[in-house]
């Protein structure tokens, strides 16, 4: 699967969506039947789907004994360990991969891949699992019934489940027992124009292995690097079109 091929498809879809939206906006209000008007809410600047937030992870800069991103994620979202690793919340996992042929070892954080073709969204029976216009995949916890279909559908083990009561939920990241959950790409920070917590923590630790940016903007650093380095997608064979890309490993 080639990245450029994917990008082209995504662009084609988004431009198609935009043209349809523009048509609806142009129409303003459509007459459905005599006396019944369908009014269309004007699209806001950042709801047009022009942006697609993504992460580029340079595994050559990621080191095995550092867990700054994991710690920052836990602190920001109030993920507290109860001493039960099987059910403790974990939105970022540090994974070590070894090439059996060459013995090359790489370390990389794996979080929600915010897929363009998200399987968690496909399987959700209530519409709780959703994809925002800017490509971020989230759980609407008011709609989640805790069936865990999304947890099973995710090929990256990125969807988690809150197994235990949350005593002091983080004000910016409400979470409670019985609901599916996962990396939100720190939407609360992105909404304010800040970087996701893991990206900031990685930069602060001096590794700068995670880059955040808009994949749809060809002038952005992330888009340029994705093209320059041929950044790979995890499990590209599944064609989920992730927004999180990796450099420095043969996947």
């Amino acid at each position, binding site marked *: 699967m080639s990245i450029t091929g994917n990008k082209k498809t995504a662009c084609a879809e988004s431009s198609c969506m935009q043209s349809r939206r523009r048509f609806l906006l142009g129409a303003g209000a459509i007459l459905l039947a005599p006396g019944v008007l369908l009014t269309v809410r004007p699209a*806001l*600047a*950042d*709801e047009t789907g022009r942006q697609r937030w993504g992460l580029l992870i340079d595994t050559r800069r990621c080191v095995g004994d550092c867990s700054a991103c994991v710690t920052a994620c836990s602190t920001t979202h109030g993920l507290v360990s109860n001493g039960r690793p099987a059910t403790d919340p974990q939105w970022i996992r540090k994974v070590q991969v070894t090439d059996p042929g060459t013995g090359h070892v790489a370390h990389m954080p794996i979080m929600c891949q915010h897929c363009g073709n998200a399987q968690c969204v496909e399987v959700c029976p209530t519409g709780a699992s*959703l994809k*925002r*216009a*800017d490509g971020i995949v*989230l*759980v*609407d*916890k*008011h709609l989640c019934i805790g069936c865990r279909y999304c947890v099973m559908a995710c090929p990256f083990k990125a969807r988690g489940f809150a197994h235990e*009561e*949350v005593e*002091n*939920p*983080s*004000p*910016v990241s*409400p*979470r*409670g*027992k019985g*609901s599916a959950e996962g990396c939100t790409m720190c939407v609360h920070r992105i*909404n*304010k*124009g800040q970087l996701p917590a893991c990206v900031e923590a990685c930069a602060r630790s001096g590794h700068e292995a995670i880059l955040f940016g808009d994949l749809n903007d060809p002038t952005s650093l992330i888009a340029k690097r994705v093209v320059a380095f041929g950044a790979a997608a995890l499990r590209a064979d599944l064609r989920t079109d992730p927004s999180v890309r990796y450099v420095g490993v043969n996947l």
Partner: protein
Amino acid sequence: MQQYNTILRRRLLPALLLGALLTAAGVFFAAPPHQAAAAEAAPPVPKQKLVRGHWSENPEIMRKNHKELLLEGMTNAARATNRKDDNTIERCVTCHIVRDGEKPVSAADPRHFCNQCHAKAGVSIDCFTCHASLPTTDPAVMSPEVRNADTVKERLQQWQKYTQEQAAKGTGK
């Protein structure tokens, strides 16, 4: 056929008549005149009209409408990429603090702002199983002026000032 007609006459018709009589009685006694008079004396609060930013001046409107406002915020919370922070439950608990000495009390305490009415009305809310019931001390979300203001009205004013400043900073970038 004769048999069915007899059954209809003897059993079904009296039953239907009794039913109609009971329904009429129910309608008559359901709205006694004294209740109607009370409703006239206290005009009902317009429920559908959502008024923003004035609830500290007119708490009656907020008492009626807070559910709709929260619901509106709730449906937009995850989906809207341009989410506005004015209808969040986080903002409610930021201003409506009940303190035990210096420390604000959480929703587990019956003195918590939300509990004061909900306990009396017998409404059990489960907002705080997921949402924080304490005001945040995160300076990015809350300024010291908001945190230290004494009255709800003052906190609201400080909050508005703070958010305006933040918005001005955001556009300056």
